[in-house]
Structure formats: structure tokens, C-alpha cells
């Protein structure tokens, strides 16, 4: 389908890129986004095969449909890129990220933090008498919601992995 330049609607896209696991490949991808003024909302990268020959980069970006088509085409022409898939357009997909959330608090606040963590199925991975580190997996909205709730309960520090994503069903990129 032909993207229309007059369509200014911004959409979010989760793009997975299979690349050679070589030095500089991440810099090429990030440099492409920076140099051409594309957004990066989330980015993850790690080797994904047994030999460590290939890495998968997952990028969440946003733009008009014409810009997103352009991002995919630009990624596709990088020499160490094997495949580019727009998981958002290609069909249903699952996207998850992991967050570690440190909350410092005492008394009723601490109890409440633990109670909410339980509701969100967050695990306590570290604790002292005055602090928790929660581990939470889920989609971005769920993690945002949890962090928002922790704000009044002593939220001290957050570390998030960024999105990992796969297409649903049997299709692979």
C-alpha cells in the first residue's frame, strides 16, 4: 500500500532487526536514527543464536507511516542487516520489558508498596529493612502504571530493559 505524504498521523512501530553480531553494528543503527532525525522510544540488543553470530535489535519508534516505511528501508540497506520486520504492521505480536524498581520507605508505605507489587506480580529481588527492589515484567503500560503508583510510596530508582518483542504464532522474522 502506498503511504500518503498527507497522512500526518503518528503511529508507534516496534521494529525488529536481525544483524551480524559485529563491532559497530549498533552504532550504525543508532547513527542512522540520530542522523536522519528518527525517534527512538526504546532499544534493546543482544545476541540471539547459539554461536553468537547474530544479534536482534528491537526498536520502538514513532512517526508517520511514510517515515516508518523509510526507517525500515534505511535499516534494510545497512550491510550487516539480515532482516527487518515491522512487528506492529506484520500482525499481532507480544512485547515485554523488564524493570527493576527501588522503593525506599517505612511502616504503612512499605506494606502498601509490597501489596501493590503483589497485585502487579512483581517479585522482590532484594530487600533491606528500609528498601525493596522489585522485578517486574510486562508491557510498557503495565510498567508505567506500577512506577506511577510507587511514586507516592518512596520510589527511588528505576532501571528498565526496553522492549523485547516477537510476532505471535508460528511466524519468525
Amino acid at each position, binding site marked *: 500500500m*502506498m*503511504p*500518503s*505524504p498527507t497522512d500526518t498521523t503518528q503511529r508507534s512501530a516496534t521494529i525488529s532487526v536481525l*544483524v*551480524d553480531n559485529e*563491532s*559497530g553494528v549498533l*552504532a*550504525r543503527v543508532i*547513527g542512522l536514527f540520530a*542522523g536522519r532525525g528518527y525517534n527512538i522510544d526504546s532499544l534493546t540488543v543482544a545476541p540471539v543464536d547459539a554461536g553468537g553470530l547474530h544479534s536482534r535489535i528491537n526498536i520502538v519508534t514513532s512517526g508517520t507511516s*511514510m517515515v516508518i*516505511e*523509510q526507517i525500515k*528501508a*534505511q535499516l*534494510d*540497506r*545497512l*550491510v*550487516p*542487516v*539480515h532482516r527487518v520486520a515491522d512487528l506492529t504492521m506484520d500482525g499481532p505480536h507480544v512485547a515485554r520489558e523488564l524493570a527493576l524498581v527501588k522503593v525506599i520507605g517505612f511502616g504503612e508505605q512499605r506494606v502498601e508498596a509490597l501489596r501493590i507489587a503483589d497485585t502487579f506480580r512483581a517479585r522482590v529481588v532484594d530487600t533491606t529493612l528500609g528498601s525493596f527492589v522489585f522485578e517486574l515484567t510486562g508491557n510498557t503500560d503495565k510498567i508505567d502504571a506500577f512506577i506511577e503508583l510507587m511514586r507516592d510510596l518512596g520510589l527511588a530508582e528505576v532501571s528498565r530493559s526496553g522492549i523485547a518483542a516477537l510476532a505471535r504464532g508460528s511466524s519468525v522474522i
Partner: protein
Amino acid sequence: MSADMTQSGAEILLRALKDQGVEVIFGYPGGAVLPIYDALFQQNAIRHILVRHEQAAVHAAEGYARSTGKVGVVLVTSGPGATNAVTGLLDALMDSIPLVCLTGQVPTHLIGNDAFQEADTTGITRPATKHNYLVKRGEDLARVVHEAFYVARSGRPGPVVIDLPKDIVINKAPYAEPAVQHSSYRPRTEPDMGQIAKAIVLMKQAKRPVIYAGGGVINAGPEAAEALTKLARLTGFPITHTLMGLGAFPASDPQFLGMLGMHGTYEANLAMHGCDMMLAIGARFDDRVTGRLNAFSQGSKKIHIDIDGSSINKNVPVDVPIVADAGKALNALLAAWQASDEPTDKPALASWWRQIDEWKGKDSLKFTQDMKRGGIIKPQYAIQRLFEITRARGKDTFITTEVGQHQMWAAQHFHFDKPNRWMTSGGLGTMGYGLPAAMGVQIAHPDACVVDIAGEASILMNIQEMGTLAQYRLPVKVFILNNQYMGMVRQWQELLHGSRYSETYSSALPDFVKLADSFHATGMRAQSVDQLDDVINAMLDCPTAVIADIAVDQAENCFPMIPSGAAHNEMLLGPEHESSGVGITDAGMALV
């Protein structure tokens, strides 16, 4: 891979270059590449041309590549050698010129230590190359060299850098034969036949067609230019070229509308604006071509053939995208057109041609030369005479240019009937390109007539290469249209900035005749129109390099002009015409 480990990395490098068919390297030595220069010294298969600045080495390799279709090769040292090459690399990237640039690097154990003449070359050149490599292990060296050549010349061609740490070229390394396999990089060259069929339907139905062809046709080789010519003649469609495409279709053919775009002809731009079917081949709809995007050829169905998928739907959405090599796609179109018994709308095409001929009648490149003795030379006239005299002489002629007004006048008034004869810096617009590019062309074509059409400002940006011309006895002719201004900037200042000529007057110019003399070349000068032909003839007769300093009208502007932010039908015509076109909008002022 051979287990033979008797050769140094430098020897392996040269062996790989030889196996890639390399005959010439343009370069400049330095500490990090000493072992490579030592290996070069001990062989005769590859010729090295010593330039006077690394930027010039890259432009020379571009001229060599563009005029031969081969990959140009550059060798420079680490640090400043590599950074000086960056402008040339980006120039080659934007104009899709196949190059391999070998850069020296500090030894691997010193990388990252801010060593003497260290630069993060792969980091700096990443956005200026199609791809780059840092060779960290000797066993990768030969494979990387072969791969670099494959990447440079295949798909959409471009420059590739290989960064070579000094220990890698000193230590022994194994050799590997060239291999064409690449695990991830496999550019698509064959067109999708379904898309070809769709294109043929649009072409057959067209009432007001136009072919818009660019540098991709030149890059696809002479066969592509031939297929384009056949297709245009078979269909009877009008055809226009981008700056980079000139020469793919013969300019002397009546179907040719001239160049399109910012300084294109009236008929080419109005045909683009008014067409109902546009066949774009190896062209990328850049801003110099389209003018204001939301007014660009609104009523046309568009077919776009490009080997680079990212060029399609980037600026202008198209109806039939075809990712393929221009030559293969053109041949497929030719075959499909001939096989189709679908009728064409001949009366509509005839009436479209009548409209185009009316536009042609406007003679938008018209200028008036005062032919009286002592008359001031119009720059257009100087180029017209250069064209006519070189054509009459019948020698194969190659033209390079610098960047500015003279470049546009050359594109308008020098006519090319063959591809690979026109070398200019299109995308990047690099002043100082023309002289070193001409050097590279003359190396590749020692017996040809090679002329750099220059401006007096641009030529000074790489004037040191006159030394290279002298050393290798290259009879390049530098034809300077000297108006004592950075003319194109001056023109914009006149049209857009109230004639406030801020810093565009070329003060304290050298005496170009004496300058030629000091570089062992021949200098000559034309002050008025009666001297012009004699100077051109003397220049072309001269066995040495020449600088011909042609004093031209300082006030002349380059027309037609589509001002930034204007549409194709809002063209400014020159003082020869009554219509003055439209004013420039504030939004247009902000564009380049």
C-alpha cells in the same frame, strides 16, 4: 583460505587489489601507511598517483570511477589523512560513486590511546560511507578487501572505507581468493515482473507521459543508457535528465527536453508539472528536482525504478515502485512494451508534444552575446563555444565541473550524447571537485580531451593539484569562468537578500596565467568576446595542462530558476523574457 603465511599484510593487500583488477591508486603517504607504500615500491602491477591533498585523491578516484565504470581506489594515512578524505567520501556517497578508500590506522594496541595521528576513522566515516571496516586480525584482511569491492560496486554503488592498523599490514597474513557470497548484503537487481506489467499498463494509457532519468542509469552501465534510448524512441515519450543523468540519453535527440530542476529548462519542468504519467529511473526526487513537494506533479501516476529501496517513497509517493538495476528494468520494460498489444493514445501524445514544443519555443536558456570587438563575454557563450569547438574537433571529450553558476551553465549549454562523459558534484555540491576529478579522468583516458569547467572561487579550493598534473604530465584543461564572485551565492544574495553581497566578492585573486606558469602549465586569458575562440583553440591545441582564465560578465545570473520553496510552474525566467515569475516566500527563504 590458503595456509601460506609468507606474505606481509601489505603484500596481501596489494595482491587482493590486483585480483580485484585495480590498476591505479590515488593516494598520499604517511606514517601509518609506510609499510603499504614500501610494498607498492616493490611492485609494478599497480600504479600510484601522488596527489597533493587527500580530498583530491578521493575526487580523482571519483572521476576515474565515473568515467570508466570501475571502482576508484584511494590510499591515505591515519588521522588527518583520513579526515581530509571525508568530504570526498560523502561526495561519493551522495552521488553513488563506487570507491574503496584504504586508510592507515595506528597499531591495534594503541587504538583508543589518543596516539599520534590517531582518529576514530570508522566512527567519523560511518555516515559518509556505504560501509566501513576496521581490520583487527590479519586473517580477515583479504576477505575484507574483496568484500569491500563487492559492496562498493554492487547495488547502489558507494564508497567503502577499510581502516588498516599498522601492525596488520606489517605482520604476516594469509591470502583468500575473491568470493561473491555475502551473508546479509544481497542487493536486488532483477525487477518484479508483476510490477513491470503494471508499469506497462500505465505507460500505454498515458496521454501526457514523461521519462525522468538520473545518475542510476549511468551507474547501471552503457547497456542501461542504450536500453533507455531504445525505450524512449520506441515509445516516443519526451525525456528529461537530472544533473547526474546527463549523457544517458543523447542531448542532440529531439525527444530530449534538457535538464530539469532548479536550473532546468522551461519545457522539462513544465512537462514534469503537467504530465499524467512519470517514469522515473535511477533518480531520487531530491529537492533540487522537485521544488515544493506539495505542488510537485500532482496529476501524474508515477513509476519509480531504483536499485535502492530507500529512495522509493522517500520524498514523493509513487504508484508503481520497482526495486531493480536500471538496465535490467529498462530491458524488461522494452520487452514487455513490445510484447503488449495494448494500444497507445497517439492523438493525445501528439497533442502533448505540441504543448511541449510550444514550451520549447520559449527558449528558456536564451542569452544575448554582444559580438562587437571588446564585448564582455557571457559565461553561457563561453561554454557554448567550448562545446561547439570541441565537438567540431571530434575528439572524445570529458567535462568535469566545480560547483556554482558555471556548473549549471555547463549542464545547460554543454550537450552530452554519451554516458560517462560528465563528472560533477551533484548531491553534496563540493567546490573543489572538478580539478582532481579531471585528473582522475585523464589518468583513465590518457588520450581524451578533459576539461574542468571552473569558477575562480571553486578552483582555488584544490588548486594545489596543478602540481599533480605537472608531475604526471596530465594535459587537463582548466576553463575558468571568472566573474570575480562566488557567483551562485551572489545570485541568491541578489534575489533573496536585497543585493547585499556579503563576503562573496573574490578579492585578491591570483594572476591565473602566472599561477599556471609556476605550476609548469600554460596560462592564457580571454578578456573580450573577440579573443574567446582563439583562447579555446589554443587551449585545446596545447600539449600541457592549461589554465584558461575567461573574464565573464560579473552580473550574469543563472536562469531559469525555480526558487526554493516554489513549484515547477513558478519558474523565474531570465531578463530575456517578459514573465518575472513569482516572489520567494518566507518558507522558501529558509530552504537551501
